[in-house]
């Protein structure tokens, strides 16, 4: 049922970025920009993506990138979008921020921009920690994961940013994963057809942060989806559609342990925490399935 999209050959991320080997932030961004095309400006707060661009006067990105202070991507993008629209320009304004810049320090600016109906696409690539500063916990870090500020494993749950966005009732919101680039490409293309604020939340496995070997990033993203830890869906004018890959996971998820075991950040996680994670996954999947059935 899924058609394979025609993905443009043009590259907007050039060779020699400063990303780590196996970085899915860069992989995701590559497809985001292929979908958005050249009439696009990226607004990037402090995050790994600010580093990946390279060092002035060089840049590895082939679209304009406006780097801005950590808390302010959505507000800056608001101003930019309004200015372009006032000038009669259709230029895509994409705020591209990490989980820290979205779920934590940037949430106020983001909520404001969504409430005001800003015409922009906000993308949160989620590597589930503060990658830029060396992997401290964020609101996106899952329960039980070790980071440099949660050396024995995080004791709080991952913040449900998608539910918070849904409460703003945007015309379009979606989740995606760097391991499924075609799905991501389609969602970005679609998001950019709407007027008003749209949101895409991309799971971006990160080798140094999650502590797995660099060649396993795609595998890790797939395991996240297959275990139900990450769910692919889109919500268009309130109507939820769960992606085929995640439907399969709802029917029969792979054991969560298959996802946790290869990752050093979950090393030594206690079985009780794994149970809580499992319960939360089941609850989330049931909630989404019910919403889809009802909508």
């Amino acid at each position, binding site marked *: 049922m899924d058609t394979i999209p025609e993905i443009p050959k043009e590259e907007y991320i050039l060779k020699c970025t*400063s990303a*780590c*080997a196996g970085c899915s932030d860069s992989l995701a961004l590559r497809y985001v920009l292929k979908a958005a095309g050249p009439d696009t400006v990226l607004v990037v707060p402090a995050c790994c993506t600010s*580093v990946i661009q390279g*060092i002035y006067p060089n840049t590895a990105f082939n679209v304009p990138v406006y780097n801005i202070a950590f808390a302010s991507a959505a507000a800056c993008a608001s101003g930019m979008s309004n200015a372009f629209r006032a000038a009669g320009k259709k230029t895509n304004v994409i705020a591209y921020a990490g989980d820290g810049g979205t779920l934590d320090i940037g949430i106020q600016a983001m909520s404001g921009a969504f409430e005001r109906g800003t015409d922009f696409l906000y993308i949160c690539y989620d590597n589930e920690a503060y990658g830029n500063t060396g992997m401290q916990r964020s609101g996106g870090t899952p329960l039980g994961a070790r980071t440099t500020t949660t050396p024995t494993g995080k004791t709080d749950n991952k913040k449900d940013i998608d539910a918070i966005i849904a409460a703003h009732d945007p015309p379009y919101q979606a989740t995606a994963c760097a391991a499924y680039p075609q799905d991501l490409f389609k969602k970005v293309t679609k998001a950019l057809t709407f007027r008003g604020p749209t949101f895409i939340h991309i799971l971006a496995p990160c080798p*140094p942060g999650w502590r797995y*070997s660099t060649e396993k990033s795609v595998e890790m993203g797939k395991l996240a989806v297959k275990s139900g830890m990450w769910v692919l869906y889109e919500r268009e004018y309130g109507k939820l559609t769960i992606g085929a890959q995640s439907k399969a996971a709802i029917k029969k998820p792979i054991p969560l342990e298959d996802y946790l075991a290869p990752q050093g950040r979950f090393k030594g996680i206690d079985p009780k925490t794994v149970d809580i994670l499992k319960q939360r996954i089941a609850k989330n999947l049931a909630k989404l399935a019910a919403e889809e059935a009802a909508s």
Partner: protein
Amino acid sequence: MFEIRIHSRGGQGGVTAARLLALAAIHDGKYATAAPFYGAERRGAPIVSFVRIDDRPIRIYSQIKKPDMVIVLDASVMDVVDVLQGLKTGGRVLVNSAHPREFKGFTSGHVDLTGIALKENLVVAGSPILNTPVIGALAKQGIVSVDSAKKAIREMFSDERNVKAAETAYEEMSA
């Protein structure tokens, strides 16, 4: 003051080697500082760390321009970096290598730190640990005493294989 510049790649333990060396020098009753130079380089890119050893407190924070000694933990950086830059005439070069390396006008030495680490099975996340054996090699060169080298290693690492690797490097290193 004795100034040492260590060349390595990010993640190879150059920073820890600098730290161990400074700690060993302090155990010798000297003053020492270890300063990694943090650039905006890519991970895995060539990096440098600096060690200064002196009989009085060290008040210099800027980079070492004219080292007395250069240590190369990864010979492949020599393809992209001039490791001899600023090295004092007659200064020493120590290269992690199984084969002798000649540097004209300088006192050169080599020791197979990688081989030693592999022999001791000192491997973390697929990479051999070079920072503890190199301290053994430096003890042989008289930069720090053997006792202080061992003491420093034991303070920073609980695994005795690190001390063994340093001992092997001490034996294999030419004086």
